[in-house]
């Protein structure tokens, strides 16, 4: 079997090359304020102290004057925002088999909490257009890049042909400004998916380049009946009094924990609201597009039933008290609003105050649902039943004999550091007694902000070969069933949860910390809490050169990715 040599350096280089707007390239780098934070900076491109929302920890004098070891960067800096088109709300684009959609990425004007920002949009919309198609359909998207950085589009969760996966340096060249790339999409699995850039996601995705793809079932009664269907895209954005908080120019900042935002958004806005009739059952399609934040979503006490995972329905529908959703994950839930009234959509978490060593309840308002009148169709009885999905069970049945097989690969999630700020090193060596399974909040804004991928190398360590991250190039064949045991090492320098995403294939989670998973669905992204060992079983169906990585944007750029190749024995030259 011929092995391809994965050009990790090329890929990493491409991922890390931002092309700056000419104005930004020419700007005086003295504006980076390397000699102290300008707390009253009127220019939004100046480095200033990272927002310290809700922090009780006093600023350490040694860090007061420090800035990340990269320039400050804001796409579109210096543009006359009034000259940009105002982005408009997302629209649903129904696509039949064979249809073509022309869509661009462009700079747009957004107004958030009364302030105008230069941001980005697919098709001029926030979020990007919702592409809706039937399962089994194939469509074409002619994509044009009208932003000032090279980009690609990754169609997250789709088992599409490798050439259209949107990975620069692996499946395609970057789409430069003004260029067009034609993607051919196919939808073999019912469910909710999403698309986003696969270059400088920390910037482009954060500024609005994301959208959903809803794949409808072709079977009758695939889902229980509901009164309405609503997509909810969860995101956050980091701003301060001077506007958007700048990004790293040569490399992302916030490499340790990822860039937490301090403005919560649903479907791109901060005041999301939905009017319904009392007694409605609403099907929400949730997608988390935040760089790093994991959400715990409540619907104001309304009953919630989980229907489906990333790539399929669950084996059994299940009532839950909230929805925990990590970056890049999707869940489909039915929610029953039985009474008239107002239901607050919230993110309720137990944040950590590292200074005081305490858990701090934190609730973010995400939106409001107002129920009045009376629903015309009553689906309460259907909602009350937690259905057993025999089709999902039957689909998974063929894989159960592999559940307890020995792992084919053992992966350890860890971090290597080099030249981190001395105070960060000292602080983190002191504060090692407890790492939470999930980081729900930005617990160390300064230390996190100061770190870039040059100082913090997030690492996927193949424990069987000793290879790390992009040195890894697993070789599989179509038809293989591959078990990967992923261990999130709590003894690493800074353990943190990681949403682990596998491109182009689907998998089930068979065990969590050795405990068999009793209710599975097919997934493409799974959260790996600190200290946990997660066994996933990959259904290898899709030939080509793929990658798997942490979906925290800053961790990906700090190296937390690996390659694998799937060969199709019936097509010896496929994927080369």
């Amino acid at each position, binding site marked *: 079997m011929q092995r391809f040599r994965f050009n990790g350096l090329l890929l990493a280089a491409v991922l890390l090359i931002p092309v700056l707007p000419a104005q930004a390239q020419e700007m005086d780098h003295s504006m980076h304020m390397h000699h102290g934070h300008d707390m009253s900076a009127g220019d939004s491109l100046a480095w200033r102290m990272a927002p310290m929302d809700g922090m009780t920890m006093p600023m350490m004098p040694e860090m007061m004057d420090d800035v990340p070891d990269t320039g400050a960067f804001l796409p579109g800096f210096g543009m006359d925002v009034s000259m940009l088109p105002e982005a408009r709300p997302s629209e649903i684009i129904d696509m039949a088999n064979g249809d073509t959609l022309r869509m661009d990425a462009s700079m747009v004007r957004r107004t958030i909490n009364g302030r105008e920002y230069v941001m980005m949009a697919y098709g001029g919309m926030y979020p990007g257009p919702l592409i809706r198609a039937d399962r089994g359909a194939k469509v074409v998207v002619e994509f044009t890049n009208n932003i000032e950085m090279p980009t690609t589009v990754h169609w997250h969760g789709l088992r599409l042909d490798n050439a259209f996966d949107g990975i620069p340096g692996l499946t395609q060249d970057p789409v430069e400004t003004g260029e067009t790339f034609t993607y051919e999409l196919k939808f073999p699995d019912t469910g909710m998916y999403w698309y986003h850039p696969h270059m400088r996601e920390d910037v482009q995705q954060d500024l609005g380049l994301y959208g959903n793809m809803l794949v409808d079932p072709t079977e009758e009664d695939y889902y229980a009946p509901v009164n309405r269907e609503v997509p909810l895209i969860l995101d956050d954005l980091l701003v301060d009094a001077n506007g958007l908080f700048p990004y790293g120019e040569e490399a992302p900042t916030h490499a340790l924990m990822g860039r937490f935002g301090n403005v919560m958004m649903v479907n791109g806005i901060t005041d999301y609201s939905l009017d319904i009739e009392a007694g409605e059952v609403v099907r929400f399609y949730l997608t988390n597009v935040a760089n790093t934040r994991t959400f715990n979503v409540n619907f104001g006490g309304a009953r919630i039933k989980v229907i489906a995972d990333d790539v399929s329905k669950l084996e059994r529908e299940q009532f839950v008290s*909230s929805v925990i959703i990590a970056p890049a994950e999707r869940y489909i839930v039915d929610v029953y609003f039985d009474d008239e009234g107002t239901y607050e959509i919230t993110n309720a978490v137990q944040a950590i105050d590292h200074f005081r060593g305490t*858990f701090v309840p934190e609730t973010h308002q995400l939106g409001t649902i107002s129920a009045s009148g009376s629903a015309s169709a009553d689906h309460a009885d259907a909602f009350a039943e937690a259905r057993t999905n025999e089709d999902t069970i039957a689909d998974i049945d063929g894989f159960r004999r592999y559940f307890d097989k020995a792992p084919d690969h053992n992966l350890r999630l860890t971090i290597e550091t080099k030249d981190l700020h001395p105070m960060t090193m000292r602080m983190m060596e002191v504060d090692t007694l407890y790492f939470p399974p999930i980081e729900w909040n930005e617990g160390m804004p300064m230390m996190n902000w100061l770190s870039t991928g040059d100082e913090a190398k997030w690492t996927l360590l193949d424990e069987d070969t000793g290879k790390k991250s992009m040195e890894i190039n697993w070789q599989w064949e179509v038809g293989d069933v591959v078990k990967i045991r992923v261990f999130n090492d709590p003894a690493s320098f800074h353990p943190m949860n990681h949403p682990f995403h596998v491109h182009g294939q689907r998998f089930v989670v068979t065990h969590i910390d050795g405990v068999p998973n009793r209710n599975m669905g097919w997934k493409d992204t799974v959260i790996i*809490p600190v*200290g946990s060992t997660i066994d996933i079983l990959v259904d290898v169906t899709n030939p080509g050169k793929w990658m798997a990585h942490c979906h925290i944007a800053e961790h990906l750029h700090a190296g937390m990715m690996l390659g694998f190749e799937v060969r199709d024995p019936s097509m010896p030259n496929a994927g080369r």
Partner: protein
Amino acid sequence: MSPPIRFDRLVHAMRFLLPRIGFLLILAIAVMALPARDVDSAASEADTACAEGVSPDYYEIELVTTRKVSGARLAKGVGEVTYVQSPFGISLSEDGSYLVNIDVSMSNVKLADGKQLVAWVTTPQLDEISSLGALDENLQVSGQTDFNKFLLVITLEPAGEEPGTMWTGPVVSRGMSRSGLMHTMAGHGPFETEPCAVYGY
């Protein structure tokens, strides 16, 4: 014909052994006292790699004896912590607190007649207490909690009685959740000059 007894050698051997007899006796008792299941568990460790309830070691709670209860002065125990099953991998209460299973197992305990061990979880302030239940004949019990920080407490209680809202007997062993190790950094380390009173510490 049996060889003649050499009394001088016998005396020499007795002189060697007698001062060491105490140590040898203790060694023998210790070997005999080793719980058989320790050997079994070591042998079967590989087999149970995927067994239910394999806790992530990081959050495992070691139970430390108080040495104050007869029959349990050398007690050992552990609380294995795993997430309550949910479609999301981890499980939370509505306010975002982790919802976890705790599988308690004790050993090296000889219970007096009419007594049972009961496991409890309580906040570090001891202001909220919840029973996980009485340990079974294998000295095991499982329960759940959503306390952010908690102590795991094993007490000696009258046999056959349902655990109430608060333990009545002496504490046999206790341990602390990993999160309990997280405490204020004021007053030590890089913050030793901090005005702790301002922060309430």
